[in-house]
């Protein structure tokens, strides 16, 4: 998870089944970008909280609050949740992108955060860039022009 205020940009590369979650508070230009790998932490002593959607989002929201962020103002955008390989249904990582996405949406709903925009699913990898000045998110993929959301 990375945090930035006022200017500059945050980047997370090559999201496949992982999900990039950006939070932006436009009033104070507070930006954060979280990159989660899995839908939920399985035990509470997990040290790498940012690896999981549930613990990662909650910890990020706490950090934002410490920096003066206000949950009601957050613009939240998502990218990723794709399927890189067609794996058989009994594989532990089959549909992991979809499961990540469901978990992220569920937790955001619980936290009362509305998703302003998203570029998710399919079978493409995405690089996500968040501009701290404007809150604009740029999505880079192979073979298509950059998308602004």
């Amino acid at each position: 998870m990375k945090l930035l205020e006022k200017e500059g940009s945050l980047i997370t590369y090559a999201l496949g089944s992982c999900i990039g979650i950006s939070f932006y508070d436009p009033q104070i230009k507070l930006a954060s970008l979280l990159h989660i790998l899995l839908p939920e932490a399985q035990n509470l002593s997990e040290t790498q909280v940012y690896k999981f959607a549930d613990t990662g989002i909650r910890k990020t929201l706490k950090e934002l609050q410490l920096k003066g962020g206000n949950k009601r103002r957050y613009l939240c955008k998502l990218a990723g949740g794709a399927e890189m390989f067609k794996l058989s249904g009994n594989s532990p990582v089959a549909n992991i992108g979809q499961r990540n996405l469901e978990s992220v949406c569920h937790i955001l709903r619980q936290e009362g955060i509305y998703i302003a925009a998203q570029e998710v699913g399919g079978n493409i990898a995405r690089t996500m860039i968040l501009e701290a000045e404007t809150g604009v998110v740029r999505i880079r993929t192979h073979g298509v022009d950059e998308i602004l959301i």
Partner: protein
Amino acid sequence: MDINEKTLDVIKEVGSIGTSHGATAVSSLLQQEVKISLPDVCFLDFNEALQAIGDPEEEILCVLSELSGDFEGMMLFLMRKDLINQIIGPMLGREISNYEELDDLSLSALTEVGNIVISAYINALAGLSQMDIGVSVPAISREMLGAILSVPMTMLGYEMDQIMMVSGTFIIEGTVLDSSFIMVPDAKSLVKLTNQLVSSYE
């Protein structure tokens, strides 16, 4: 993870035997001299793994099989353009300058080559360690390197923060090709493998 030098040597040796089987398989398929460099074994966290292998946004072709049975994990065979052309050239008389040009026939030929290399490697590993290892039907993807490497990271995400990579480089007819294969075992299987092998070497 606690791995001593002797264990590392054994893994390297097994990797080397596995890869030489893989090289022989590709060699007889292409009717060319194929060698694979002595494999490197390293333990890396996710970000380091990316740096070790290149630019996360680089487009690459990857054949992936899941391993099951006594040994669980994944085997990835990463192919860059030079190796792809070395394969589809003699097989299909085609050459590509970017990955989008790969048609269904080329993709299926490359998947099969990946399958042959992976199976040869795993057969050698299974024979040496006397383990019963299943290899899934291979899946193929051409996408960003980072996104592809996140697949084994996701598989291991709940049990470890590092992945073990056994990787090697192809040399066809004396030309070093920038392609590699990676074996990623889960923690349990790694222990099983080293117990099985280290004890028999002692």
